[in-house]
């Protein structure tokens, strides 16, 4: 493989602790190496430019059944945005739910190299893997959902952690999954009867277990296994006024639990898209920001990481395994509604949504997301996401960076709101002058998520030995710049290397890369009870046979398996 030397760039790397100093980055055999370890490199002149590790997205809905429902039922999402085939680039279409090809290219254009699919229904794992296979360039993994799974509900009702862990290990292997995802614990099972669980103590119909028991049990099982990532939760009561108390109640379920993982993470709970979970008030008329209460908690508790779920003020497509929420949303906006309940496992819904700057609530949501990041004491525990495509499409990350880095940009946006005064009154943002720097942005988009995923040994930094995922942006942080320059530069990486392959050259896609699919193979002691339960459920309740359930190798042409041994 070719050797590269990226010379004289302004490097921002939390792993090495470099805050914009000029440094050289050397690449050999797909890894970052010491600059003296290469002999005849191609030299990339990065003088006057910004150099960072490849971006890591911890939470985006980019592949799988509900994403494809979004594509197929929204032809309007393709209007005006189609890109013809050109050179090595295949046809690309879609705005909020882009085709897989566009997903890969657009992340690469932003300098991202690793993207985790945030919710994989186990029964549809093959579909998710087929789409990831057809997404070029990116390293990807997918999180199977566990929070409404009948096995989990039955085991955790009696607090059977070992059995839950054995089942998780089996399901990760069967679906080639990466982490334990929990969406509206218990609530989606309740939705199978048209009901919901609205707080952490609201019992699940028939199963007689509470969301709190599910969350705590899954954290414990996750740590029993010592998985790379922590339990990754989307709590109950998403998107409702006054829901911040449910969020705090959910946070508190992690108290006193320490990580037990050799992958170097410090958290036992990752709470996703917290913007949607930080609302005060008791109706849409008086909804307000509770980002301060939320961040007070996060700032004082080290065993939690979160991501933003930043609203980008676009027309987009919401999609989640939180089935009851999507029904709630379609009642609210009267747009088309797709729902797909999945036997024994989960459910999901899809509804288009327009985040209009003319609507007060949308503007309040916008402010709350930014507040979360700006009130964070440690930028390496809060990650930049839009819960793509729920709060906005991922191509807006550079715009979010602009808002985070520039008070002027935020003021411009405030001025564009129809209900500016009401929004300012309901939020804290106008009183926050903080502007993040590129080091903090690198924490939020590289080092932080990589560490939280248990992948700090591969991604998120520029230290020798890490994967050679390196982005070069045409942005000089030492020269004066306008807010829009940030968005422009970070939307359009000048160069991008992915495991040592140059995939973007002079702002153009230069290679379809060497995409890998990450999954976690956790070894546990033989557990005859769980295997008997699995056989029984497949025989009696599933509509596919056990032997037709497992995702086989050919769906993952280039797998990267992370081995975990929990047999002790």
């Amino acid at each position, binding site marked *: 493989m070719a050797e590269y030397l990226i010379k004289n760039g302004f490097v921002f790397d939390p792993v090495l602790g470099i805050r914009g100093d000029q440094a050289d980055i050397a690449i050999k055999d797909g890894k970052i190496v010491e600059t003296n370890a290469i002999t005849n490199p191609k030299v990339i002149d990065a003088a006057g430019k910004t150099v960072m590790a490849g971006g890591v997205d911890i939470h985006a809905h980019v592949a799988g059944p509900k994403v494809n429902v979004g594509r197929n039922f929204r032809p309007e999402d393709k209007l005006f945005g189609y890109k013809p085939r050109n050179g090595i680039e295949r046809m690309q279409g879609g705005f909020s739910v882009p085709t897989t090809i566009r997903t890969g290219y657009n992340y690469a254009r932003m300098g991202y190299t690793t993207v985790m699919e945030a919710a994989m229904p186990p029964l549809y794992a093959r579909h998710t893997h087929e789409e990831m296979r057809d997404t070029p360039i990116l390293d990807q993994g997918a999180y199977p959902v566990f929070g409404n799974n009948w096995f989990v509900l039955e085991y955790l009702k009696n607090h059977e952690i070992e059995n839950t862990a054995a089942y998780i290990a089996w399901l990760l292997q069967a679906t080639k999954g990466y982490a334990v995802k929990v969406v509206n614990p218990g609530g989606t099972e309740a939705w199978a009867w048209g009901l919901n669980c609205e707080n952490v103590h609201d019992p699940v119909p028939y199963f007689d277990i509470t969301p709190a028991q599910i969350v705590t049990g899954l954290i414990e099982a996750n740590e029993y296994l010592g998985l790379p990532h922590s339990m990754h939760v989307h709590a109950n009561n998403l998107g409702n006024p006054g829901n911040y108390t449910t969020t705090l109640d959910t946070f508190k379920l992690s108290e006193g639990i320490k990580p037990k993982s050799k992958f170097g993470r410090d958290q036992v709970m990752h709470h996703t898209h917290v913007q949607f979970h930080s609302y005060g008030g008791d109706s849409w008329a008086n909804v307000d920001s509770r980002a301060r209460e939320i961040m007070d908690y996060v700032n004082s508790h080290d065993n939690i990481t979160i991501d933003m779920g930043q609203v980008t003020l676009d027309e987009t497509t919401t999609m989640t395994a939180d089935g009851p929420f999507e029904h709630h949303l379609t009642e609210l906006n009267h747009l088309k509604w797709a729902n*797909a309940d999945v036997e024994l496992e989960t459910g999901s819904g899809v509804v288009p949504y327009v985040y209009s700057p003319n609507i007060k609530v949308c503007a309040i949501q916008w402010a709350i997301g930014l507040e979360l990041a700006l009130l964070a004491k440690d930028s390496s525990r809060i990650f930049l996401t839009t819960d793509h495509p729920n709060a906005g499409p991922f191509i807006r990350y550079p715009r979010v960076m602009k808002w985070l880095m520039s008070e002027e940009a935020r003021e411009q946006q405030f001025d564009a709101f129809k209900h500016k005064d009401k929004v300012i009154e309901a939020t804290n943002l106008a009183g926050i002058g903080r502007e993040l720097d590129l080091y903090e942005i690198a924490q939020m988009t590289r080092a932080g998520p990589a560490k939280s995923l248990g992948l700090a040994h591969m991604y998120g930094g520029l230290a020798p030995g890490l994967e050679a995922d390196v982005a070069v942006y045409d942005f000089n942080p030492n020269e004066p710049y306008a807010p829009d320059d940030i968005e422009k530069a970070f939307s359009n990486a000048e160069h991008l290397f992915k495991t040592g392959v140059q995939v973007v050259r002079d702002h153009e896609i230069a290679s379809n890369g060497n995409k890998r699919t990450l999954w976690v193979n956790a070894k546990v002691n033989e557990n005859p009870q769980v295997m008997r339960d699995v056989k029984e459920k497949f025989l009696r309740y599933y*509509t596919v046979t056990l032997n037709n359930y497992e995702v086989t190798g050919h769906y993952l042409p280039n797998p990267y398996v992370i081995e975990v041994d929990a047999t002790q």
Partner: protein
Amino acid sequence: MTRTVTDVICPFCGTLCDDLEVVVSDDEKDLLEVYNACAIGAEKFLHSQAKDRITRPRMRQEDGSWKEISYDEAIEYTARMLTDAKKPLMYGWSSTNCEAQAVGSEIGEIVGAIMDNTATVCHGTSLIAVQDIGIPSCTLGEVKNRADRILFWGCNPAHAHPRHMSRYSIFPRGFFTGKGHTGRKVIVVDPRPTDTASLADVHLQVEQGRDYELLDALRVAFKGEKLPDFVAGIPKEKIYEAAETLKSGRFAIIFFGMGVTQSLGKNHNIDEAIAVTRDLNEYTKAAIMPMRGHYNVTGSGQVWGWLFGFPYAVDLSRGFARYNPGETTANDLLRRDEVDAVFVLGSDPGAHFPFSSVKKIYDRPSVAIDPHETPTTEVCKVHVPVAFVGVEVGGCAYRMDNVPIETRKVVEPPEGMMTDEEFLGRVLARVKEIKGV
């Protein structure tokens, strides 16, 4: 000696049963017996063993007779036909695996083809309705485990999806449905007294073409508003009663078929059926599901969805993907003389398209890729026989509820026969050579 292969997936209809057992000879060359399958599914497996099966490509001669050609010649003809055409139609894609569909899609991209699948004469109208109003649905296991109200509208699974009722909808005992069919109320809406209707608790014999009115009447009845004495030939008492039956269930499911998607009203019927389902969710839990026909028509919609963003009628001829049913649908294109070559794989338009469309296929350079001799192969210039997907080669297929299942290979294809995916892979390579990409 023989060997029994278990958990075999049936590559016939959208029910995609995966519990078949197939007995094969020890050398895995002969398929001897099929268990658990319906009559149609069993026949599909056994038919692959026909001794008079065509195993080599053939080209039509001037005098109308066939001449055997090599796969290389067939690949060359197909690649030339597609690259020479200004606007080729690549139709079918429903009886093959997703792997082949993906390769075919890339060919379509390079040659600027129109890609259309069998939904165009089947559930395409349902797909349009979903684009209008969405679709609250579920997997078939949800029906098995929870549903106590089953409504079949314009479909006849007793004949078209023979194991649907025993595996998923009427008879199975699931987790919350331990009483099986005795715990379920079954309503059939059909102008004909079908074999499915004979199993129903209630048969609403709707007047032909009046489905929209009856669906609308149900919505009125849900709200307790006034109905005329008869709607669509059904007395209002029966409509109120049916509405009450649906509302009083714990979990209602509507299955619908060609009787509503391709009769008067088309996509508007489905709009209304989905609206009925949405309304029911105000009172209880309800879902709706199209009874997809071919075993992987659903999969072709999925593959095109993630590659192009549209489930059928995808026009790639301008270099980017467009979708405009009525304009970019196979029959409309054929009958308006807008396509100048026809490639068919995994479908039989010769049997299912109007004669006026079939004549256009006959008039053009045309290739049919199909394991069988069909009415389509009879009108095409070249016929390329291939291995049976799900019998002689595996690959992914999507059930009617979009659940993907990997089909199995149970026997070897006849010596030297190519699979869909292999053939398309070779055509793709040749097309790239010709186009210089």
